[in-house]
Every structure is written in structure tokens, then in C-alpha cells.
């Protein structure tokens, strides 16, 4: 059931997740629907309980962010000290998993190169590419110019040859 309501207080853990946990905890036990619904709401209540207590502890410590330590103290003072060992273990596991994932992705993508260096290399490559392109363009321009010049010269000498030929004829006539 998706929570489409904008009201904060309607936020609950998804029913399916709770059902699964109940099934794993009490296999083969029939659980009434209203009992399941109650468990869902108890979860929310529990989270609020822990958050408020942890928040109070946090405020007293003059820190701004609720830390793991605050949560653990909250569990202790609210009578849930028996949870502490296991939640601490899980936290350790989560950190290890997250660390492995970060290392793995950085190994694949960066080959161990830090981001700053990658950026620098990228800028270098761009600059080089721009330079090469400029040089290429210049070369092409020069070639075009040369070709044009040659064409011009060829045309000029052709005309000159023609003129030379016809002026010779005229001279001969004058001599007679």
C-alpha cells in the first residue's frame, strides 16, 4: 500500500516488510490482520520514541546531528539495552559493506586516480584537442592559399604566353 498522503504522521513502515518479519519471527503462526496493522503502528511509535529521546540527548550534548552514540544511549535509557550489542554489530557490517562498495567502484572507474587528477587530465586532453584542431585548420588554410596562388600563377603565365605570342606577330609586321 503506497502512502500517497502528504501528512507526515501517516508515514509507516511498509506493511509487506512487517509481514515478512513477523513470518520469520513466528513461522507457522496465524496472525490476525488487525494485529499486523497494530505492529505497523507500533513500529512508527517506537521510531518516534527513540528519535525523541536521542534528540534530547543530542541537544544536551550541544551537537547538532544525532549521532550513533546518542541513539545507543537512548536505547539504554528507554529499557532497550538488550538491543545494543546486535545493533552495534550491524552498524559495523553496514560500514564494511559501504566501504567495499566505494573501493570497488573507485577501482573500476578511476583506476585509483583521485578526482582532482582526473579533472586535470581531462582539461589537458581538451586543450590538446583544441590545439590540434587549430593547427589542422591552419594547415588547411595554408594549403588552400597555396593552391590558390598556384592557380593564379598558372593562369597568369598562360595569359602572358598568349600575349607574348600575339605581340611577336605584331612586331614582325612592323619590321617590314
Amino acid at each position, binding site marked *: 500500500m503506497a502512502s500517497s498522503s502528504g501528512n507526515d504522521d501517516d508515514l509507516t*513502515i511498509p506493511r509487506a516488510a512487517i509481514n515478512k518479519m513477523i513470518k520469520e519471527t513466528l513461522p507457522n503462526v496465524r496472525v490476525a490482520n488487525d494485529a499486523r496493522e497494530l505492529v505497523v503502528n507500533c513500529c512508527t511509535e517506537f521510531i518516534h520514541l527513540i528519535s*525523541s529521546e536521542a534528540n534530547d540527548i543530542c541537544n544536551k550534548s550541544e551537537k547538532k546531528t544525532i549521532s550513533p552514540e546518542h541513539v545507543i544511549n537512548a536505547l539504554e535509557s528507554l529499557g532497550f539495552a538488550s538491543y545494543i550489542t546486535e*545493533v552495534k554489530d550491524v552498524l559495523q557490517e553496514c*560500514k564494511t559493506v559501504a566501504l567495499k562498495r566505494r573501493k570497488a567502484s573507485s577501482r573500476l572507474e578511476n583506476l585509483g586516480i583521485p578526482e582532482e587528477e582526473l579533472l586535470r587530465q581531462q582539461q589537458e586532453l581538451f586543450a590538446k584537442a583544441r590545439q590540434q584542431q587549430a593547427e589542422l585548420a591552419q594547415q588547411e588554410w595554408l594549403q588552400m592559399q597555396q593552391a590558390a596562388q598556384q592557380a593564379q600563377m598558372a593562369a597568369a603565365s598562360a595569359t602572358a604566353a598568349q600575349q607574348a605570342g600575339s605581340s611577336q606577330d605584331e612586331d614582325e609586321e612592323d619590321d617590314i
Partner: protein
Amino acid sequence: MKMSHNSSAKDDQASGSKKPISLPISRVRLIMKSSPDVSSINQDALFLTTKATELFVQHLALSSFNNGSGKETNTLSYSDLANTAQEADTFHFLTDILPKKILAQDYLNSLEQMQEEEGADY
């Protein structure tokens, strides 16, 4: 929409959860932030709270079942949970969200009492 920061649910089929945490962490964060005055929560603190909530569900379900009337019939009912909330200190905070289920007889009794009191005024 179920959002989970963990790997998919395909992992824990029969052998039980291989993932450290099964509940959706993002949802837990939302619920925490809807608490008055709660500003920012460290990510690790969030992990701890999520796992604690999981343990709470297991704890509540087990306690209610073991102390409840449904053990013979292998059922867990609403009243099993309600009774556990009333009787166990650690679960007492839940009585806030439990509407008190009044027995019909108790209701009639208190109704009678009210009528008697009103009668005495005349």
C-alpha cells in the same frame, strides 16, 4: 513504493536474511524526521535506529505470542499485543496508540455510576 538502500530482497529466501538490515532505511529516516524538533541524523545513527526497530518488531511479536492466549491455537491476536503493552514496562509506551478496549459490562457500570451522580444533584 518500497525503497531500500540495500541489495534486493531476492537474497533472503529460505536461509533467513543475509542482509544486515531488512527494513527500508529511507522510510525510517522519513519517520524520524517527522518527529518534532529532530533536525539532522547521522547516517550511522540511522542504521542503528533501523536495526533497533527490526529487533523491536521481533521482540514485540515474540513476547506477545509467548505471553498470549493463542499459544495453543498457534495464533497471535490484537489483544495479545495490547496485553503485552499494558503489562510489560518496556512496551508500556505503546498504550498511547492502543484505544482501550472497554468491556461492555465495565461501560454499563460506569454509565450507571454517572447517572447516579447526576441523580444526586437534584
